[in-house]
């Protein structure tokens, strides 16, 4: 081979090598990659969240490997033990978010979510999303208000009660005014824990609630005991004449409100979170057809001892996205979830009954006044407190559920139940890591 041909061959080889390198490099940069997401949603919720993820993929090209499981806590714990956590998980309990943050398994989002995006959430949510630390760990994907009492406006025409005494007197002339269902397999009892939490929050105030929710107040404290007793009086009436509705132990929480819409009604009031709207709207076979928000049901805010209910703190729950792996795709998804665009998608789906805590998600997204009212509570400047049982260690939380069932079965066992809860708190909660902040605002 002549020197000229050698040079030509070398030049050709170099050109081929550069072309191959460019092609491979282009392949690498052209593939946006995948992000894995773990959540507890299935059915309609999964389909709704999929719309959020589809928009994310359309915007970024990043594919989402979604895993939905009802046993989210077990699956997540198992994946973490195996050293293979998902990139992003949607945690239904701020307690878990706090645990993982304390154990440094969750990654802070301070350099992922820009202050401009964070400011869309009210200051109370800044506190809650930091789960008692200096760093931002969670992005609220959707939230619910729990300090609500639902009623049929056609049957309960008096103004909403302004304090607990007036609430107690409100009965609609029924033998058993409260729609009550405790069955929620496998966590039966939680609807009752919402009652106790709401009463304690409104009766003893956020500071006591915060202490109790984070394991720094004894269950045998008189203020906690009073909350249980108040619940008992609300159910049995001021004079204790009504029997405790023990059948609530077998009644499904989503089924309890149905008799509010029957003719004649079986109950007039239901203490339940904003998510109950989906159950109401799903009732079939009622005389007036499926209940319609505004026409067939409305809510008033759970009142305190005094003062306007609008000024009272609200108990809330939220699904928070947390990042377990620091990848560009995971960062991209977390950033997207915090945007106004993403926050609008789920609440904007008809019948989804999902609520955003972003103040930039305007009332036009919600289709009825009831939903707009709930969104206003979540985005206004008022104080909100996380569901206390969601902040408790699992053993404490499960015992709380059981205690509620035990109390409804036999209210005379209250002191025994509180003693048992206190023993569990002393054993399980006192030794655990510091818990997330319960209230913000």
């Amino acid at each position, binding site marked *: 081979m002549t020197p000229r041909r050698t040079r030509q061959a070398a030049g050709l080889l170099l050109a081929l090598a550069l072309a191959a390198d460019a092609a491979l490099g282009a392949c690498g940069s052209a593939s946006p990659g995948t992000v894995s997401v773990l959540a507890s949603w*299935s059915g309609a919720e999964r389909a709704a969240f999929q719309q959020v993820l589809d928009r994310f993929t359309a915007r970024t090209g990043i594919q989402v490997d979604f895993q939905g499981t009802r*046993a989210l806590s077990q699956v997540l714990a198992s994946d973490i033990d195996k050293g293979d956590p998902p990139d992003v998980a949607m945690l239904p309990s701020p307690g878990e978010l706090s645990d993982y943050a304390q154990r440094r398994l969750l990654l802070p989002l301070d350099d992922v979510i820009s202050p401009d995006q964070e400011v869309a959430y009210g200051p109370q949510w800044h506190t809650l999303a930091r789960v008692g630390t200096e760093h931002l760990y969670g992005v609220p994907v959707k939230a619910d208000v729990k300090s609500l009492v639902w009623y049929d406006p056609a049957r309960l025409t008096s103004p909403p009660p302004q304090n607990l005494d007036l609430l107690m007197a409100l009965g609609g002339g029924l033998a058993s005014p409260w729609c009550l269902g405790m069955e929620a*397999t496998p966590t039966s009892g939680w609807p009752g824990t919402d009652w106790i939490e709401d009463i304690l929050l409104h009766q003893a105030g956020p500071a006591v609630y915060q202490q109790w929710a984070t394991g720094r107040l004894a269950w045998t404290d008189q203020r906690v005991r009073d909350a249980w007793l108040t619940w008992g009086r609300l159910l049995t009436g001021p004079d204790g004449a009504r029997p405790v509705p023990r*059948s609530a132990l*077998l009644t499904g929480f989503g*089924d*309890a409100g149905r008799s509010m819409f029957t003719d004649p009604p079986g109950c007039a009031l239901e203490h339940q979170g904003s998510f109950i709207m989906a159950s109401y709207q799903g009732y079939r076979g009622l005389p007036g057809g499926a209940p319609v928000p505004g026409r067939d049901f409305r809510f008033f805010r759970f009142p305190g001892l005094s003062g306007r209910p609008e000024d009272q703190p609200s108990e809330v729950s939220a699904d928070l996205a947390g990042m377990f792996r620091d990848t560009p795709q995971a960062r991209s998804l977390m950033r997207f979830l915090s945007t106004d665009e993403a926050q609008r998608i789920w609440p904007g789906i008809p019948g989804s009954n999902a609520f955003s805590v972003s103040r930039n998600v305007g009332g036009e997204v919600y289709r009825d006044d009831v939903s707009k009212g709930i969104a206003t509570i979540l985005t206004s400047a008022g104080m909100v407190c996380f569901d206390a049982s969601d902040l408790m260690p699992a053993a404490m939380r499960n015992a709380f559920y059981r205690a509620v*069932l*035990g109390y409804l*079965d036999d209210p005379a066992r209250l002191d025994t139940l509180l003693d048992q809860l206190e023993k569990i708190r002393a054993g399980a909660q006192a030794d655990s890591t510091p818990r997330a902040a319960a209230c913000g605002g």
Partner: protein
Amino acid sequence: MSGRASTTALCLRWQRIGLLAGAIAVFVPALLAFQGARDVVGTVGARTSAAILDVTAAQDALARADVAAVASFAGGGVELAGPGQDHQAQIAVASQDLARAAGEQVTGDEGSRALQLVGGLLVEYTGLIEHADAELAQHHDLLGVADLWSATRLLHQDEGILAKLDQLRAAQQDALHRQLSTGWLDRAAALWWALPGLALLALLVVTQAFLRRRFGRAVNPALLLATALVVALLGVASLTLVVRSRLDATSATVASVVLARQTRTSTVDATGRWRLAQLLSPQCAAGCGEVVTAFVRDNSGGPARQVEPSQNTTETQEVAMSLTAAGRNTNLEFLIYAASGAVALLVLVGMQPRFDEYRHRAR
């Protein structure tokens, strides 16, 4: 050298190359198909059908465990008997079945996740039964019945344990169907060895005719024997189609066992629901919501029912026998090696004298 002579030499050479290439073209796909069929028989036997049977057996055991617990609690003496020995035994059986199904890994990550979820739900189910036991032992009857109701719902509701296992079993049956209808067991895949085989036979016939015409020999015995061996080789390869048919029969047996177990589990389940309705009815005289009311109404009719005995062992043996039948003759792989080798050797041996004869004539 004459033109005719050189054409004869060329033809002989190409015929020999063609026959050897044809032998290889039959040997390779026939061997792969045979090995593929044998592997599928092994996989279906050791994993897929076993996993399906394990999951259905777990469903059966869980339904029986639930009935046993309700029966024990309804029968009195709960302080001493608890949920009963039968309940505990059936839970142990179900746990073992699920552990085996997890080990068989038929449906990949999805299956592992489903079993992980079922495992978590099973822990919650047994926890609720323990709570029911504790409450009933302390004469907190309503609490105990509420726990039993929750446990039953956890087992039977739409996203409950049995429904999850149903979904998993359906995915396993889909996997079984795919194993039988794709790869070397796909009936169309037989063309890979059948077409070269037929071409080889045709070439052998053509070669015999050529030798007869050019060399005046009536029959070349070696090529005749090679022809017979190619036919035998194709016969051995066609055993893959027989295996496929037998595996279809096994699949049908598995499906019938699944159906029988579902029917039996459903009967067991109806017995459990009837017993639970008897427990719920007095507790819900004032109403416990639409779900409980409907449950009691739908399950209170008729007399007490008896639980049919399990036939899992017999059914598992039935599937095992079907699998044994499917795997029969899959050890004949050596015949493919032997027949293919012999065909190649006979082609060489059968054609070499004609090459020698041609050279002799040419000189």
